[in-house]
């Protein structure tokens, strides 16, 4: 299928980074190509590339211009991006426990009303999803997941909240996500997980990698409280179900 791959746009982001843009939209195929290029660069590093930042539609490649010029870098990136994406043979798969609704997910009822269904139906649909970490960004550990079923797509809130709790699991637009730290959000809050996607003094500090698969499991509030204590003490709480 290599012939059908359109070349990405290479956009200089200042003098020390280049945005390799596969699409202007949220597009699953583009995200897979982003992640494939990211993996390719991890496998065959280009001298002078200092770090890569995958997002939904583009890979931001930071480089040291004293070690590699823009033209040489662009050429190598274009060549790598043109190769067909090898299938991810053994993506990790995590099960993340979530306490839905109530004070843990203050928007669940409203989301159900807006979509003309019950809160239980929203939860059933959300836990049935098979998601992929499309990108991590904004704040440490904020994991944006693709694969949200169309029924649950919702415009973001008109008025973003200035503070939402750590561990919030939410939906916004065509995405769902897990945020690690308390902070602002314009998404609809469905629940909370005790899982820390970012925790200092734990190994690993960052739990999820771009490309990891994620499913959710419903837990009750009592279990959430127990897991929250365990997570605080350094346990992962998230369950690695594959590979």
């Amino acid at each position, binding site marked *: 299928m290599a012939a059908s791959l359109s070349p990405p746009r290479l956009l200089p982001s200042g*003098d020390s980074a280049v945005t390799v843009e596969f699409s202007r939209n949220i597009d699953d195929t583009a995200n897979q190509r982003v992640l494939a290029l990211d993996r390719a660069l991890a496998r065959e590093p280009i001298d002078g590339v200092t770090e890569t930042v995958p*997002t939904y539609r583009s890979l931001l490649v930071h480089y040291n*211009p004293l070690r590699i*010029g823009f033209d040489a870098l662009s050429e190598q990136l274009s060549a790598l991006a043109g190769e067909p994406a090898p299938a991810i043979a053994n993506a990790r798969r995590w099960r993340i426990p979530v306490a839905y609704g109530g004070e843990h997910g203050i928007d669940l009822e409203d989301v159900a009303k807006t979509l003309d269904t019950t809160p239980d139906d929203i939860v059933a649909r959300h836990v049935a999803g098979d998601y992929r970490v499309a990108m*991590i960004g*904004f*704040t*440490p550990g904020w994991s*944006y997941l693709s694969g949200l079923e169309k029924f649950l797509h919702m415009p973001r809130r008109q008025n973003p909240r200035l503070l939402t709790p750590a561990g919030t699991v939410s939906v916004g637009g065509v995405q769902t996500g897990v945020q690690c730290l308390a902070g602002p959000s314009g998404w609809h809050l469905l629940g909370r997980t005790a899982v820390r996607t970012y925790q200092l003094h734990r190994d690993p500090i960052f739990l999820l990698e771009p490309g990891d698969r994620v499913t959710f499991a419903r837990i009750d509030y009592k279990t959430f409280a127990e897991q929250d204590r365990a997570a605080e003490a350094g346990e992962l709480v998230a369950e690695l179900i594959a590979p």
Partner: protein
Amino acid sequence: MSKLVISSIGPASSVQDGGRLGSQRYGLTPGGAVDRLALAAANVLVGNAPFAAAVEIGPLGARLTAHQGAVRVALAGALRTADIAGRPVAFDSSMTLADGESLTLGFARGGSFSYLAIEGGIRGEPMFGSLSVNARAGLGSPYPRPLRDGDELQTIAASGAAERRIELPEVADAPIRIMLGPQDDEFGEEAKALFLDSEWKISATSDRMGYRLEGPVIKHLYDHNIVSDGTVNGSIQVPGNGVPIVLMPDRGTSGGYPKIATVISADLGRLAQIPAGRSFRFKAVSIAEAHKELRDFVKLIDALPARLRDVENFDLNLETLQDANVAGSAVNAIDAKTWHVPD
């Protein structure tokens, strides 16, 4: 061991170094000093590596006191009145605080951030290779938050080395150079021309995450929401209200607003030091020019030790300060006899 005790310090003051790279893919912003040249100059003055951790002091004043022995420090960056036990001291110089002596710093003039480097560095536990404070992520050492009154920085006893001054090149009062993009195609020719041809000011609501610009409203061609993509230090994003924001080292690692342009690396520190209210302009340059400027900037940092001079007497020091264009009106506004800002 000696320590430097923060007797008092204004907001937006924190321990910063060269920042932490390699974890932006997890949403962890690099942080680090906003003015790398000033950080490096202060560090080199006391024999530290250029990007060792130092105290980045925000626009308001500070007072630091040596305890359990003498502490040797150096000052660079935004000028301000400075004295040790009432004796005026100069910027771009090293100095030694005897045990119990205090360094008192006034408000920043002609800039926003000053750097206080400490001989031997600041003792702390690096996370991801850096002591830089990132309060939101709980990172930074010895304190994972901005500095407060009463904080203590552990360091080595002063070496007793002769004090030094450093001759830095004049800071050009030239436009801040940018490269257009990565999303300049989200803006029409008129909007781009308006961006490049207008006078801008830094809003007083700016911080280490972003500098908000005051000037004309920059309109998008299409939607102001794009799909989030990666950011860099110096990304100039334009949100829905048309007010551009220059992203600084504590930025989010991704953003969903179109980025009309990116400040070149060599000019980031100069932009960071533009005081609120002063007008400036942008100028578009090619990637080749930006890379040449970056090479020159790196050469300048590498060659800082060759710019060190002995301090022969205070008059010379004062002269250096007055000669430094960075001081500009700020120094002229200070009465050299009393070393105080006229009321």
